[in-house]
């Protein structure tokens, strides 16, 4: 396996982000999710919620469609329409060829155009064109063959190769699992932890009433009323990318560096949208720290096992940043595990800034830090 041979590099992304009263990711009672860590209950946003926000942020960052994937049950239908577009075949013949190309994979069992695969298949838009390449040049000849001859023209290796090279970046990052065709699985190259608050926080409820504008003058009741659970928190968010796995998935080191940088950018800037219109909670992180390591990824959540307390007017963000810096410093010195490279973007001043300087280096603007990361990864 190529990941054993190539040079290993892990990219750790640490984010501190304060959100005002909000309900980013709710449970079945409508309350924001929570978890207990260090013996206190804290706000939590699930990794699934933040990964979806990250995927959606990819297109907002201007990553073109052909670099992204499609998750659909209708691969046969999608392939047939691409074959019809590239050749002069009618729809029925194109559907027949499409079914023949992917039949050896066991994805679809029928030549019927309306049939769907039994599960959502996550593949790249470039990959579908690679499947079209298999038939495009000799489409008319193939369409003239009878079913048996046509089936003999395609092997599972051809379709597999097309689906296993040139992955879109979201498939390469988040992976793909197809239970009954494990040959086309892709090992995910990134990992996102559940975001948890650096401190304990109470779940609160907003009781609201809405007034009926056309209410009769003698009526005193509310038009409607209800409750929304919310809390406010400074979140620690952690994500890691295995650059060597990304290189293996994309079969292109330059594309891997681009994809890693896109992940960092999208992960940092994204935000789950739960109750967005009610709370307008969209904030930007106060701190983004990145480490590149050759040994192993290091999750710094242990900095917050002892919950942060806000004395006087400090708030939670500055003491959280100081605790993060201290944990990075402790791991580098006590365990003899310094990072290969670190970069940081933050908005802190005074002693907090000094501690961050010592742990992660001089702060840069976020675009400059991304450029420096890219330079380090291509070095």
């Amino acid at each position, binding site marked *: 396996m190529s990941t054993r041979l190539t040079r290993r590099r892990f990219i750790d992304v640490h984010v501190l982000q304060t959100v005002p009263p909000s309900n980013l990711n709710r449970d079945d009672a409508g309350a924001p999710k929570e978890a207990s860590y260090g013996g206190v209950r804290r706000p939590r946003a699930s990794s*699934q919620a933040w990964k979806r926000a990250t995927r959606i942020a990819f297109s907002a960052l201007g990553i073109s469609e052909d670099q992204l994937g499609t998750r*659909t049950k209708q691969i046969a239908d999608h392939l047939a329409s691409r074959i019809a577009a590239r050749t002069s075949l009618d729809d029925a013949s194109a559907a027949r060829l499409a079914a023949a190309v992917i039949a050896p994979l066991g994805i679809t069992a029928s030549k019927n155009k309306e049939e769907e695969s039994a599960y959502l298949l996550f593949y790249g838009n470039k990959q579908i064109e690679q499947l079209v390449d298999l038939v495009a040049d000799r489409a008319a000849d193939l369409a003239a063959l009878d079913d048996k001859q046509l089936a003999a023209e395609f092997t599972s290796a051809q379709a597999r190769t097309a689906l296993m090279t040139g992955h879109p970046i979201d498939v390469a990052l988040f992976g793909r699992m197809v239970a009954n065709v*494990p040959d086309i*699985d892709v090992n995910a190259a990134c990992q996102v932890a559940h975001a948890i608050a650096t401190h304990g926080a109470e779940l609160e409820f907003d009781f609201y009433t809405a007034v009926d504008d056309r209410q009769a003058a003698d009526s005193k009741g509310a038009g409607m009323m209800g409750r929304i659970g919310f809390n406010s928190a400074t979140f620690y968010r952690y994500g890691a990318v295995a650059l060597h796995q990304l290189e293996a998935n994309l079969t292109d080191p330059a594309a891997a560096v681009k994809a890693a940088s896109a992940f960092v950018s999208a992960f940092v800037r994204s935000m789950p949208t739960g109750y967005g219109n009610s709370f307008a909670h969209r904030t930007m992180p106060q701190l983004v720290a990145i480490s590149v390591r050759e040994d192993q990824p290091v999750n710094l959540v242990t900095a917050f096992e002892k919950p942060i307390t806000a004395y006087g007017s400090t708030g939670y963000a500055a003491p959280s940043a100081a605790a993060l810096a201290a944990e990075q410093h402790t791991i580098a010195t006590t365990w003899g*595990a310094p990072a290969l490279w670190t970069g940081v973007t933050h908005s802190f001043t005074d002693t907090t800034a000094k501690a961050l300087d010592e742990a992660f280096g001089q702060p840069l603007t976020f675009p400059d830090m991304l450029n420096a990361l890219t330079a380090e990864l291509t070095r």
Partner: protein
Amino acid sequence: MTTTATLLLRLAAPLQSWGDHRAVLDARHTAAQPTKSGVIGLLAAALGRDRDEPLGQLADLTMGVRVDLPGTLLRDYHTVSDHRGVPLLSANLTAKGRQKPTSKPRYIQPTERFYLQDAAFLVGVNGPADFMKDLTAAAKAPACLLSLGRRSCPPTYPFVLSLTDSPLIEALTEQDWLASPHARTVWQRRNHSAAPAAIDVPATIDDPDGDTVLGDQPTSYLLGRNRHTTRRVTHRLITLSTGFTPAPDTPAGEEHDPLALLGW
């Protein structure tokens, strides 16, 4: 006779989840402690093994788990939907064996995922000394991203504690309690300010003569075809020093007796 060695791992994080084969469509459970298939899978990932590679020496390792902090169960509500906005599929099949869409249509499938929160485990893995050396190097510099049972549960530092010549049970007994200073404070608060000098923690150890059979010995990690067999284990308690200073014993005859004030 080849010598053996024991690798000690610390499995601790805000969340971990160890699948216990009760995974059905709408619920993902967790075992109360790391499973052998989970730990062997973690080590295989550290070595960079593919799912289709034979387990080889990994299958023959002996494992012991010490429950330093059992943690608590977290139930996570999770929904699944089809991004195209089409109805989800039902359990009913068509004549061709395909699932029918739900009718009346349902668009969101709620699922439950269970995690252990605030838990810390000591895992000892024993095997031939030279293989254990390679395994330790791989655990310190893994080929793949590691996780504690589920991808969203990355381990915290330090993950590898030591590689020792001690046999498994001795190694599990010699290692200090993994509770951090903060976790010790929380433990004390939860136990009504008790400060015993030592506590007993449960351990589950592979043992061919054990009286309990568990079904988590892995034989294959092929997706959709992962297989397990059984293993025998024994349960025992291991006494650990806590570092607490116990309150001096109350001298005899001076017990708190509120009724004495009333002259009874």
